């Protein structure tokens, strides 16, 4: 274990790559490694980027990497793409836009699939963030499609959360209104050479300014920035806004430590417990065959699902091992 910690903290690419795989595959032994690595985390600045498919997140991340490298920062990228609910497979194509950085030893890029994680996506991505953090990356960029609570939670756990939209997708903003508008620290209008940019800008501004009272009290007011990621236009302005948000966190929330505020730790612990309980209980029930027997009984009509659930969960909880 000491060997592993040393390899990760010294930036050994193969070890890190394998460890992230173990996290993703839910290998139980990975927990020990994560415990040992935790003291080496907390030094990276995490930026979450989300938005609908096709708005240009990967292209933007690619430009961010280029800019951050010019500033001498090392960068880790986690690009999350959806798993097919039918086959369980996934095509992870975010790398296509970022391949020019693959030979740069200051950059580590990893594609992750959402899999059928039952809320564990947040969990495994957070662990992957911890690993890249312990590896010594200065900045970690996490990119997810902004649909579904899990994906939103992932980017929420960043220091700075960036929402990317494109002009002319009115309905898109409608969707954002409902969920992720509140979590954006910075809004980007990508492909802003296109018609409708000003309309989108106005709509966003209107929505953000509805919270003017909060901003008057000194809370962070999310800026809206026009970019054309493909042409590297506006990316400087965008990164300046990230810097400004980082300064704001420094002054108000303890800077890097803001990811470990009591509220966030509480929420993360709830999720971690949920995932772990689920795993332990379902493992046990599938091992003993109780789960399948209950399913059979419900299908045959000799048992109702509510009683079945009760009959499964409580004994399983009582019988959980203290520690393996």
């Amino acid at each position: 274990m000491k060997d592993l910690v040393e390899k990760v903290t010294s930036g050994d690419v193969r070890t890190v790559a394998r460890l992230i795989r173990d996290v993703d595959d839910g290998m139980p032994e990975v927990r020990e490694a994560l415990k040992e690595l935790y003291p080496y985390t907390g030094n990276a600045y995490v930026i979450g980027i989300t938005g609908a498919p096709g708005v240009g997140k990967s292209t933007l991340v690619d430009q961010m990497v280029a800019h951050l490298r010019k500033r001498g920062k090392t960068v880790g990228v986690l690009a999350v793409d959806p798993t097919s609910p039918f086959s369980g497979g996934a095509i992870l194509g975010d790398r296509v836009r970022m391949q020019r950085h693959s030979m740069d030893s200051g950059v580590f890029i990893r594609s992750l699939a959402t899999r059928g994680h039952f809320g564990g996506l947040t969990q495994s991505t957070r662990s992957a963030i911890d690993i890249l953090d312990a590896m010594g990356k200065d900045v970690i960029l996490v990119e997810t499609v902004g649909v579904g609570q899990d994906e939103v939670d992932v980017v929420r756990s960043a220091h700075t959360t960036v929402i990317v939209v494109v002009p002319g997708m009115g309905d898109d903003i409608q969707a954002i209104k409902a969920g992720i508008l509140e979590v954006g620290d910075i809004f980007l209008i990508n492909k802003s050479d296109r018609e409708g940019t000003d309309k989108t800008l106005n709509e966003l501004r209107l929505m953000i300014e509805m919270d003017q009272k909060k901003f008057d009290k000194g809370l962070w007011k999310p800026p809206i920035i026009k970019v054309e990621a493909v042409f590297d236009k506006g990316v400087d302005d965008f990164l300046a806004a990230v810097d400004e948000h980082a300064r704001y966190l420094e002054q108000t929330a303890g800077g890097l430590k803001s990811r470990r505020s009591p509220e966030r730790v509480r929420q993360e612990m709830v999720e971690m417990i949920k995932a772990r309980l689920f795993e332990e209980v379902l493992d046990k029930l599938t091992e003993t065959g109780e789960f399948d027997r209950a399913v059979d009984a419900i299908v045959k009509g000799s048992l109702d699902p509510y009683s079945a659930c009760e009959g499964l969960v409580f004994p399983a909880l009582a019988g959980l091992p203290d520690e393996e």
Partner: protein
Amino acid sequence: MKHERRVRVMVAKPGLDGHDRGARIIARAYRDAGFEVVYTGLHQTPEEIVEAAIQEDVDMVGLSSLAGAHKYLFQTVVELLRERGAEDIVVCGGGIIPDEDIKKLKSAGVREIFTPGATLDEIVKWVKENVKPR
């Protein structure tokens, strides 16, 4: 139930050949077979492919070539993986590749070559049988 390794593969287009229809179709077939497929896009150097394969911790690299530089490109990928201590990553290839080259490539460490006429089912079956999560 959750501690099952998922097969991860990479589909890459080395060299200057710009025809990626085949590679995309293969990627799609792999996805439908339940694999996680990292797609790198066109015009990759062997060095880029190997670095990406290591960062992504894939079990196999599938190379597609339709423009004739396969001997150099495929072999270099195998050699670079070996240099990095990653020879456990299976390399296979596909494309318009003459029989005499297939022999040479196989003896150089490319595990299998698929040529025009190979069906998606055959290819997927081969991967399932020959590529195990490491």
